[in-house]
């Protein structure tokens, strides 16, 4: 169980997934989450990642990784090709949020989305009292070099899912070190959602 010291969000996602599933991880980075799912949950996993160095790291872990852009790489999969499509900390960075989201729902039976919370109280305070674009633990970038292009709150995402007829089966809200249950749109850094059609 060496992976139990893995990142909290990865552990939460792993707990949401049934064993021996077929996974597509969009924006899989260095493959840590996929590695966890392959070893702990015996999943078959594919990842798509645009960063070349991250591809080398994924290959080193023995993973199936495809070098490419998730904004364009999904049309080639047929409907319901995967048990789960994962978009952890990647959906806020794609050019076409809505297209990627719809495509993920099409090719996956279920979709897991992990997003930073732009309405965290620290972000609100920075914006309100300092009048500056916020920099927080889950939004660590300055406005001029941020890979994030969509800034949304948890409430925004929940309304969005509703408008796209995506059913939120479960949601888990994370603070810096543990789960948050009280007023997550104010106190949680990250929201993780298990969605179905």
């Amino acid at each position, binding site marked *: 169980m060496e992976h139990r010291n893995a990142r909290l969000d990865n552990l939460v996602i792993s707990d949401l997934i049934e064993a021996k599933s077929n996974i597509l991880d969009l924006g899989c980075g260095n493959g840590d989450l996929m590695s966890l799912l392959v070893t702990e949950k015996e999943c*078959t996993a*594919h990842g798509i990642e645009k960063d*070349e160095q991250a*591809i*080398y790291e*994924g*290959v*080193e872990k*023995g*993973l*199936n*990784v*495809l*070098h*490419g852009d998730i904004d364009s790489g999904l049309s*080639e*999969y*047929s409907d319901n*090709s995967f048990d789960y499509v994962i978009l952890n900390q990647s959906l806020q960075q794609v050019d076409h949020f809505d297209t990627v989201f719809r495509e993920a729902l099409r090719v996956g039976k279920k979709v897991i989305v992990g997003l930073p919370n732009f309405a965290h109280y620290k972000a609100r305070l920075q914006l309100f009292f300092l009048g500056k674009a916020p920099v927080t633990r889950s939004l660590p970038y300055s406005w001029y070099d941020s890979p994030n292009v969509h800034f949304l709150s948890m409430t925004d995402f929940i309304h969005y899912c509703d408008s796209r007829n995506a059913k939120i089966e479960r949601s888990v809200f994370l603070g810096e070190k543990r789960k948050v249950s009280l007023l997550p749109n104010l106190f949680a850094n990250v929201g993780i959602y298990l969605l179905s059609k």
Partner: protein
Amino acid sequence: MKEKSIGTVKTEYFTFAEAGQELKLECGEKLGPITLAYETYGELNAAKSNAILILHALSGDAHAAGFHQEDDKYPGWWDTMIGPGKAFDTDKYFVICSNILGGCKGSTGPSSNNPKTNKPYALDFPVITVTDIVNCQRYIIDHLGIEKLLSVTGGSMGGMQALTWLVKYPEKIRSAIPIATALKHSPQQIAFDEVGRQAIMADPHWKEGNYYDEAGPDKGLAVARMIGHITYMSDQSMEDKFGRQKKKEIKPFKFTADFEVEGYLKYRGEHFVKRFDANSYLYITKAMDNFNLLEGKTIQTLFKGIRAKLLVIAFKSDWLYPAYQSKEIVKASKLAGLEATYCEVDSTYGHDAFLLETKEETHLVKNFLKKVYGDIEKNGT
């Protein structure tokens, strides 16, 4: 360098399709006997599960690694990738490289003796395809007693052969590594090949292919090779290698090759004619141009039912086999649900990168093979 090499190696020859059992080619003609030159490196394990077949490109041969003689100046053509501790680790794997049908380095081709006439085949040699080339390699694998290859791999035309193995003999391979290649030759690729062929055929020494008793079409073949080399490099790699630099000794003639790049191409062309047969060049480039795995098939069904794992590698500056062609291979594997990995390596070397960009290639190939080989031990399949 020599201590990292596999050392001294020897080319072997295997003859099959003897009289009465000639091989039926895709064009309908029968050919035999056929000899293929091949080399092997490393040891085949008891389970015969560690064999990798290396497939060479247009001008390659069976000599992929090591040295034929102690004092050889240059090792085999992919020595940077094949050897102890290298990507194709000969301490772990049994590596085979065979020369192709139609070649001129010990295998049956247009320069070989036609048993019917007791003269070189020349243009009596039948039209061959990449599938014919692969069908011949099957004989070598069977001869070596290998039921299932751990992997088939090659760059450029070698990649076409790897893909043909994948489609024609999926039960015979556990994985394939097509590098800088395509599912079908594009019009641009055909066009460059045709210019090369026209250069050979325009040489008065070509004589409809009947030049084996006298001086051959060296000038034409050299020009074909020069065109080839231009397409193997990139704008950037030419700039880095030559710039506008001029050669030191300039001869008093208007059109002497006075730029470094001209000298390089001239040298490459002249060097090539010493080791390659012009008719082989015609036949092999034609086989490449006719290559189209999608003929009569759709990309949706191309890899259907195949279980082998794929590692697809492309290079950013390769404009002869652009990355979009490798992405087509990835697309076919996505549609068929194959386990696949794809990397577009950031390289400035152009198409030649598959021979030169060995650090990244080694990392990808080594870890991929480790996984495929590890799965055999884990699953016993």
